[in-house]
């Protein structure tokens, strides 16, 4: 219990502490940031261990007549651990990336507070808490999006806020309806709406899909995501490829398994439609990505595509689909973060932000580009990388769930991924003569490179040894089926 409380509060405490420190005390601030993210991560792992051991850590309170409770279950644990662990990596990377940049104090303060918000989303035990942290996450990440303070960044930030707040508004309506129909909002004790079929449930599902779909960048609601790429790379890496967007995805997983339940969803017409929307998003996202020249935008559209993998898996309503979704969550998070990290290193070291300028990067930054290449393979879904297992189980789930064309969509997406990123890698290694000047070396570069490499190694390890994460996946599947 203490671990849970501390895991949640470490971000906020750290954030306030950072905000209180004078802006000039960089070293002290870095220590504080590292300490609090680290301790948050450790506490999350402790929480995870307790939950896997079968303990229930319920922490309920009142929020104006509504129960507000934290009650991590295996699914939340998976999301929480992804966030907490990657947060630590990102913070280390940030220490390198942000060194010498403006507005560092704001950056770290909000990064830490957003950490708490994300863990809150992960560990929330009912819809009210989920909604609270979901909103909080939007607001605390806004300053990170506009970190550059350029007009472009400001515009992107506004877009980000409006999309997400509008989504949250729709979500609120959905939650209210759930409360009215289901009579309770807690996740424990089976699906909330399991009682029976009602006429408005399709609409309710629609509202939930729109509400969470904004953050999960489901197709017509995705436009904030590429725009938000003006943020510093660590933010793009963690928040817009993993934490924030995963909050949406996680929400939808909750909707499927904790609000509606698979039996009920199986009878809803709209639920049968969503996998196809997700499939469309998978394809359109990656096809649009192939046409982007700015590397980060390309990654962003690819994010859109890959997030829908998870949704697709969730809506197969099959245990294997769920396992695939969870595996994809884990594997993709690790690799995508590394992917962005690579892009960040390239941009910082050589100033190259466009695919068309990539020639010669491979010669100048061999380690980074090797990491990039490995991650590319993972994005395609090739075997020695962790993402393969996600894809594998997703396909398995969709075939077993009777929706075999979805498996073909996943295959097609893999092929287009290859078309999208392999030329980048090849181009980077090709121009032998061109050698870009590297701006600097030293500690800063090491700080950026080490987390990247570690993540790639983790991705490889997951591919070769999926048993590494399997207990977590197993726990989720057992929890819901």
């Amino acid at each position, binding site marked *: 219990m203490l671990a849970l409380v501390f895991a949640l509060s470490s971000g906020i405490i750290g954030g306030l502490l950072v905000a209180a420190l004078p802006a000039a005390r960089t070293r002290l601030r870095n220590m504080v940031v590292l300490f609090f993210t680290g301790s948050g991560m450790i506490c999350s792992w402790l929480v995870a261990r307790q939950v896997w051991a079968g303990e229930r850590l319920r922490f309920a309170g009142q*929020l104006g007549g509504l129960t507000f409770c934290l009650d991590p279950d295996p699914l939340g644990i998976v999301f929480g651990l992804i966030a907490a662990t990657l947060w630590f990596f990102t913070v280390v990377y940030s220490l390198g990336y942000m060194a010498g940049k403006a507005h560092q104090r704001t950056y770290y303060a909000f990064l830490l507070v957003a950490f708490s918000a994300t863990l809150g989303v992960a560990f929330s035990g009912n819809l009210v808490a989920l909604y609270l942290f979901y*909103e909080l996450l939007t*607001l605390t990440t806004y300053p990170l999006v506009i970190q550059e*303070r350029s007009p472009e960044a400001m515009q992107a930030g506004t877009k980000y806020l409006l999309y997400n707040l509008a989504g949250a508004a729709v979500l*609120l309506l959905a939650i209210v309806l759930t409360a009215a129909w289901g009579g309770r909002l807690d996740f424990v004790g089976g699906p909330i709406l399991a009682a029976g079929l009602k006429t408005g449930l399709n609409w309710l599902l629609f509202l939930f899909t729109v509400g969470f779909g904004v953050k999960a960048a489901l197709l017509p609601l995705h436009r904030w995501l590429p725009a938000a790429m003006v943020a510093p790379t660590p933010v793009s890496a963690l928040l817009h490829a993993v934490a924030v967007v995963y909050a949406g995805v996680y929400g939808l997983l909750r909707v499927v398994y904790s609000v509606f339940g698979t039996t009920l969803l199986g009878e809803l017409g709209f639920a049968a439609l969503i996998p196809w929307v997700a499939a469309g998003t998978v394809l359109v996202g990656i096809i649009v990505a192939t046409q982007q020249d700015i590397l980060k935008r390309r990654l962003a559209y690819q994010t859109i595509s890959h997030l829908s993998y998870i949704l697709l898996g969730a809506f197969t309503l099959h245990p294997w689909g769920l396992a695939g979704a969870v595996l994809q969550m884990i594997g993709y998070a690790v690799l995508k973060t590394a992917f962005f990290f690579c892009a960040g290193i390239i941009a910082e070291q050589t100033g190259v932000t466009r695919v068309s300028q990539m020639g010669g990067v491979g010669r100048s930054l061999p380690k980074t580009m090797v990491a990039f290449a490995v991650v590319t393979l993972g994005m395609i879904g090739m075997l020695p990388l962790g993402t393969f297992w996600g894809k594998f189980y997703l396909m398995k789930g969709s075939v077993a769930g009777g929706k075999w064309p979805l498996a073909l969509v996943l295959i097609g997406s893999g092929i287009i991924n290859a078309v999208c990123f392999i030329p980048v890698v090849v181009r980077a290694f090709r121009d032998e003569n061109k050698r870009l000047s590297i701006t600097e070396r030293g500690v800063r570069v090491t700080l950026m490179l080490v987390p990247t490499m570690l993540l790639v190694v983790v991705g490889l390890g997951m591919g070769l040894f999926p048993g590494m994460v399997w207990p977590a996946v197993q726990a989720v599947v057992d929890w819901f089926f």
Partner: protein
Amino acid sequence: MTTLIRANLPVLVVIAPLFVAFILPPLARRIRLVEALALLGAVLGLGGAGYLASIVLTQQENPFIYQLGGWPAPWGIELVAGSLGVFFLLVVGVSVPVLLFAQGNLAAEVGGAERVTRFYVLYLLLVGAMAGMAVTNDMFNVYVLVEVATLSCCGLVSARRYPRAAEAAFTYLILATLGSALVLGGIGLIYLITGHLNMGFAAQELSRVWLARPHVVLMAVSLIVVGFGVKAALFPLHVWLPDAHSTAPSPASAILSGLAVKGYLICLVKFLYGVFGPTLLQEFAVHRILTLLGGVGIITGSILALTQEELKRRLAYSTVAQVGYLILGFGLLNVTGLAGALFYLASHAVIKATLFLAAGAMLAATGKRNVRDLAGVGRKMPITMAAFTIGSLGLIGLPLFSGFIGKWYLLLGSWEAGLILPAVAILAGSVLCAAYLLPVIRAAYFAPAPEEDWPDPGRPQKLALLLLAAAVVILGVRPGPFLELAQKAAAELLAFY
């Protein structure tokens, strides 16, 4: 002594501010004393309200009926402190922090020390009238109190020596008097067919006679809705509000937007539910009109707020939008919706007071009216801006802040009423609210600050801001008696439905 106070509590609550208001003018020279006395008057009122609330909440006496002069009901005038009354009496407590805030640089705001006393007198009159509206059970008393409130509001609006303020006050006065005339007409019609001015008796009589003279009743309903609508800035009748609320001195804006408008709304609720009754409303489809007007008001008010450059005007339009929520809730005709609207009323009173006071503090420190010019103010005036931020988040309806709970029950209510469009309007209003308030916060925190030095306001003002901000959070996390009272009041108002 204690028993005396307890026995006369409803009237004391009303009398205390009024009494202080009357003894202030001779003391005009001694500003300190005036300030202290004014605060005392408001605090006494609040204290009485708290005591009353505790009596009512613990069911020692609910409703607490007080017969003025000892005359029993149909002939005498009654004060009834039921759940609704006590609830609004507590909301009137917002006047205390606003008064505290006023103690800072009111003289500069209203243009001269000699006007300060006048301001306090008007202020306390307004507070007294509000308290009176909360507890009165007599229709003609309502009219008188409304007029008192209107006049003091106009006085407060015109407190600045500034021609636009006078213009706004005149506009307000004309329209408000028009409204009062309509209300009086409505009361007259009710009296005509029922022969009673006491709300309870009139209601009983009405339920018997309305079938015989439906058109008269209809006329009365229309007159009263429109009359109070004008005063409470119900959507298309809001035209006076932006000018009046944005040109008034900041504490006055806070109390006008936060409280005065709510007083009229409480009167409207009393008439609609206490006199006509839900059945009649449904018969005439008034509730649908209210919901419609509320919804349109939310959207239009919010968009209008979005188009404003001037911060106080933006807040004033936001009030129009928020009144829309309340009206919408009144029209839902179910306990949840009505309770939500009432709670939202309290929440908005606190939030809007916070916002206006913070805006006033910023205006006083920077002299800048427009949102765009307030760049960087967040770093220079941290406490003010923190209060503003909390208020904004509350108004947007984030959980942890009071607005969320109100919206939650309103949404539930609209679901119970089987209506989806009000829910959509409520949520669209939230998003639009974010769209017009967050740019202020963005400019304040994330835009480069100019060189000038803008200090935070003085200690009482800071205290007031912090109190109000704390109230926003406390109402959001532990709404306790407020929510309970709102729910009880709603249940009582809809008891026979």
